[in-house]
């Protein structure tokens, strides 16, 4: 089984340096692109590979790149979204800390494909070791002329800068991120216009997730057909899957795209801890719908998880066991979303606060008949189309699915006027 994204990450916890990266074949893809491919050919190759965005939405990467205007009339930008802040998600950290040059080479190739001359790594401020690894990687890349003027002996020039964020979940949202990079509050922007038309400082801009960009050098080096062959599904490549919660071995694994939930949970995470039973999981971070036992054989890819009523999201699962209160878990999630709402749209700042208070009351034994209906109403109120960005619809996902799968638990909280798990 091939694991291109993680195979060169040193086990001693130190980042792979430039020499180590080159020794493992690194920067060959960049040289190939600069020597023998036009920007359009690079975009085409990525399109053919069926690489889909690993930040959670799964948008086809090559298509996203092709939205950048063909004619270059002024500055344009690429941003690597390294603002990993989706609760339960810890995959990009691993790539950033372990193999910074893989991301940088991916960015260089993407920038060339979109004829961008300035790119940013937008990194969350809490990721101190990643910041160290990326700044060292950038310095090494400049020293070796992979960055700067006329890189690697070509006529193409590129600068990459590291921006350390000051922390807010909204910065992970594409247009919120652009505002944050401009030095503003990370409120979302209305779309359209989409960033390829009007992004950073009103110029054409593309934002890609870290894991997405890390795949790019491998696609170029080995070809789209090879990349598709790594996968067990239509979406190309491998995927970093993770599991947290009360499983035997919480962790992160690079596996073929389309590996089933059961295989990840049972073979890699080792099943549930002794004495605990599986009740459900969020397949890819806080903003995805719960799945339950009946979904264990669903392949983890963008299409199949959606068919099962959720989203693959970031691919890092959060597992709920039978000794943890589902209402408490949803309260924790809605508390997060209510706190991180930027306050820009009414359904989000008002609705999430309301939902959070109802859940908090339920947990404290002050649930009322009618609360479940109010929560169900909020999930409709927060649905896509009612807000500028995906924060509120994302927040509705675990709530609406918990109401569906764990309704008895909600009812029990209200009926018994207590959290049944508190005394356990």
């Amino acid at each position: 089984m091939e694991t291109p994204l993680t195979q060169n990450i040193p086990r001693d916890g130190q980042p792979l340096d430039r020499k180590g990266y080159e020794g493992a074949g690194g920067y060959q893809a960049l040289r190939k692109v600069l020597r023998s491919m036009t920007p359009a050919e690079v975009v085409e190759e990525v399109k053919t590979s069926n690489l889909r965005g690993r930040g959670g939405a799964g948008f086809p990467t090559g298509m996203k790149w092709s939205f950048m205007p063909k004619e270059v009339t002024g500055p344009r930008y690429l941003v690597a979204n390294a603002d990993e802040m989706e609760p339960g998600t810890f995959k990009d950290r691993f790539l950033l800390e372990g193999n910074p040059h893989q991301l940088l080479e991916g960015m260089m190739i993407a920038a060339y494909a979109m004829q961008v001359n300035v790119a940013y790594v937008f990194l969350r401020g809490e990721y101190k070791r990643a910041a160290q690894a990326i700044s060292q990687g950038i310095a090494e890349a400049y020293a070796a002329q992979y960055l700067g003027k006329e890189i690697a002996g070509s006529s193409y020039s590129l600068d990459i800068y590291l921006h350390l964020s000051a922390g807010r979940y909204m910065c992970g949202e594409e247009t919120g991120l652009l505002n944050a990079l401009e030095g503003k509050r990370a409120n979302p922007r209305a779309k359209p216009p989409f960033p390829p038309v009007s992004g950073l400082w009103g110029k054409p801009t593309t934002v890609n997730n870290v894991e997405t960009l890390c795949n790019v050098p491998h696609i170029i080096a080995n070809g789209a057909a090879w990349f598709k062959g790594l996968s067990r599904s239509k979406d190309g490549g491998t995927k970093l899957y993770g599991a947290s919660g009360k499983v035997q071995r919480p962790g992160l694994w690079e596996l073929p795209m389309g590996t089933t939930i059961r295989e990840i949970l049972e073979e890699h995470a080792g099943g549930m801890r002794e004495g605990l039973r599986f009740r459900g999981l969020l397949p890819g971070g806080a903003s995805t719908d719960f799945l339950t036992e009946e979904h264990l054989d669903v392949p983890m890819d963008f299409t199949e998880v959606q068919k099962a009523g959720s989203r693959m999201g970031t691919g890092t699962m959060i597992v709920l066991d039978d000794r943890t209160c589902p209402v408490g878990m949803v309260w924790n999630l809605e508390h997060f979303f209510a706190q991180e709402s930027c306050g820009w749209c009414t359904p989000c700042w008002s609705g999430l606060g309301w939902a959070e208070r109802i859940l908090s009351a339920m947990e404290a034994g002050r649930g009322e008949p009618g609360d479940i209906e109010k929560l169900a109403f909020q999930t409709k109120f927060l649905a896509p189309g009612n807000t500028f960005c995906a924060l509120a619809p994302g927040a509705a996902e675990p709530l609406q699915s918990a109401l569906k799968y764990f309704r008895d638990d909600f009812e029990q909280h209200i009926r018994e006027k207590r959290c049944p798990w508190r005394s356990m």
Partner: protein
Amino acid sequence: MLSPEEQQEIEAELPRYPTKQAVSIDAMKIVQKHRGWVSDEALQDISEFLGLSCSDLDGVATFYNLLFRKPVGRHVVYICDSVSCWIMGGTGIAERLTQRCGARLGESTADGRFTLLPIVCLGACDHAPVMMVDDDLHLDLEPAKAENILDRYK
């Protein structure tokens, strides 16, 4: 007035962006690094240096989790309160540390040694529960272990 050091560090950020406004977050982080927090006076200094309005800067400062508009202790303890840590007992960590410090989340100890803050997911969920003290991430915590870790920060 910004110190020469602060000015120099802020100026070093300017060439990376086409506008001065883009540097505002970096500028506040730089000042916070030197002064511990972003006071009204610091906002005024940055606003004059970058030519931005003080209220715009304050709007930005109050938006971000890692910019402090109040003084903090010598060490800032960030306790993750997101979902994976919650499942794994993160609440118990927060309870133990608030008890030991005699300060609630969002407050500082009387001796100015620690400020306790809740923080969103630190991206180390396979080692939950976790916390960060200053720049150091601490994994696989239990209440007693978390308490012992604080002893290292004087």
